[in-house]
């Protein structure tokens, strides 16, 4: 224990004397939490709509003004016919074309004619979400028109109620994911950089020639960053609450326990990679590859359920998958430790596995 204490004191002294690190570990969570939720949003806004109006009735005028008033849709132009609208779409100036057929206004009283929506699918997200928004807007518009004329409102209207994230605020959905990204970056990179720096400076030689126990040395690289990550987690959670009004629906302890395990996993992976490489470039390249895989495959951005089966199997071999699911469940749904015991057991298992691997891959004798 005495040796471990000595080594941790050394790490803390070096950290405090570093002109860059203490600022970085405070600035990094601030930046991520204050900036990223606004950017990592999947609300699609500013969808440009062109209307090919063959009808030119007061009904079609109502539709136009309705679209113009929409928060998400932006009316970019009125066109005499479909081909001229299509030319604009091909130029990328508009994303959606709404074609209102001739006689549509009149047909509202009986069997309505069909309106058509044409979407540019190059940006699949914008195309599909945009046409959905446009459909909803039209539907509302038609209902209002029919209601104002005393006609029956079609019953086939679907109403969606969102549980757990009632405001459907995408920021709330993304914040737990951003916190995980922070833990991956700080917890993964910092120990790896620290250790490989010792290799590059040659200071590790002096450690290798001492009788220091490899577990103690490995722990001395893990524990300081584990503490830093938990502080960063705290900063993020307080900011999420202050700035976005996002409170933890479940217990804070459930989050802390999961984060404590998860940081151990990620930091151990960083240490393993640093042990396996000789230079900073090697470590950084390996680390970036792993982190990219984690971010893309863990369900952080895209749901694991919509991946092909082989990718789903792979995702369940990756530690962050359990963390992403867990964080969202606790943060937004208020799930408890006993609901998510599988995730905790998986994270704990990974922590032990990678922790031991980190110590084993540290070779004092080349």
């Amino acid at each position, binding site marked *: 224990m*005495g*040796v471990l*204490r*000595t*080594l941790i*004191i*050394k790490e803390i*002294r*070096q950290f405090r*004397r*570093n002109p860059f690190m203490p600022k970085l570990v405070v600035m990094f969570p601030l930046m991520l939490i204050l900036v990223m939720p606004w950017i990592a949003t999947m609300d699609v806004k500013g969808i440009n709509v062109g209307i090919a109006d063959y009808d030119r009735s007061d009904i079609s005028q109502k539709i136009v003004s309705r679209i113009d008033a929409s928060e998400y849709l932006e009316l970019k132009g009125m066109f005499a016919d479909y081909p001229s609208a299509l030319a604009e779409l091909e130029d990328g100036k508009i994303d959606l074309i709404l074609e209102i057929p001739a006689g549509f206004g009149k047909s509202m009283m009986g069997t309505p004619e069909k309106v058509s929506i044409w979407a540019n699918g190059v940006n699949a997200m914008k195309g599909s979400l945009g046409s959905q928004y446009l459909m909803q807007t039209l539907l509302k518009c038609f209902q209002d028109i029919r209601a104002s004329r005393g006609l029956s409102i079609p019953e086939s209207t679907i109403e969606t109620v969102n549980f757990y994230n009632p405001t459907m605020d995408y920021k709330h959905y993304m914040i737990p994911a951003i916190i995980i990204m922070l833990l991956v970056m700080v917890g993964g990179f910092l120990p790896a950089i620290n250790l490989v720096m010792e290799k590059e*400076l*040659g*200071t*590790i*030689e*002096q*450690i*290798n*020639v*001492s*009788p*220091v126990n490899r577990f103690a040395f490995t722990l001395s690289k893990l524990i300081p960053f584990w503490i830093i990550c938990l502080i960063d987690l705290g900063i993020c959670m307080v900011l999420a609450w202050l700035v976005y009004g996002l409170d933890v629906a479940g217990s804070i302890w459930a989050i802390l326990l999961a984060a404590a395990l998860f940081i151990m996993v990620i930091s151990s992976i960083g240490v393993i990679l640093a042990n396996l490489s000789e230079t900073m470039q090697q470590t950084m390249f390996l680390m970036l590859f792993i982190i990219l895989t984690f971010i893309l495959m863990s369900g952080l951005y895209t749901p694991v359920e919509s991946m092909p089966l082989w990718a789903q199997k792979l995702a369940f071999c990756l530690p962050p998958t359990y963390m992403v699911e867990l964080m969202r469940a606790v943060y937004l749904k208020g799930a408890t430790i006993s609901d998510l015991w599988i995730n905790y057991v998986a994270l704990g298992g990974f922590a032990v596995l990678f922790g031991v691997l980190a110590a084993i891959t540290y070779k*004092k*004798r*080349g």
Partner: protein
Amino acid sequence: MISVNNLTKMFGDFKAVDGISFDVAKGEIFGFLGANGAGKTTAIRILCGLSKATSGSGHVAGCDIITQSEDIKRNIGYMCQKFSLYEDLTVWENMELYGGIYGMKTKDVHLRAEQLLKEVDFYEHRNDLVKSIPTGWRQKLAFTVANIHSPKVIFLDEPTGGVDPLTRRQFWSMIRKTAAEGTTVFVTTHYMDEAEYCDRVSIMVDGKIMALDTPAALIEKFGVSSMDEVFRNLARNAVRNE
């Protein structure tokens, strides 16, 4: 204190160390000479348990170099060719760190560090950051740190490289004082005047030990007037050129 028998280290087909054998007694200053690339550092790293020998056997401080490398580490001090104290720590913090790593009590570390630093007149600079200290002093400090846990053997790999003549002289008086206290000193150097401070020297050429005796005996054997000429006589035949 050190005994080595037929020690060999291969890197692929390359024999970096080629069947060397020697013994070093307690309290002896043993000079381990050789041209660049002769295999000195490789041999030292095997003796310190930083590298595995391909074949051969040996003991350092009573521990087997093949099977007990971690036990060896408890009993030796090592000063790397490349300066490897923590530059972002102070002198005192480095000493606390290494004392602690060798399992010394904090109180003992402080006593020993104070004594060693006072001997080299550096006690008042103990709170200076190592990065602000000039080369000559750094080498003396590195030696002091390697000596903090009173090891049985100290390995010094080119300790006086890039050091001015006056500081080199001071450095060697530190070495001799340490040896007089019973510590075995195993030192490599390129300076032949330094070789004459050693009790015995070995000269390595192309991975093999070509000569091993006291400096005076070697000078006599080769019929020359200084260690410098002994070295040149032997190193001239070297095949490896680095």
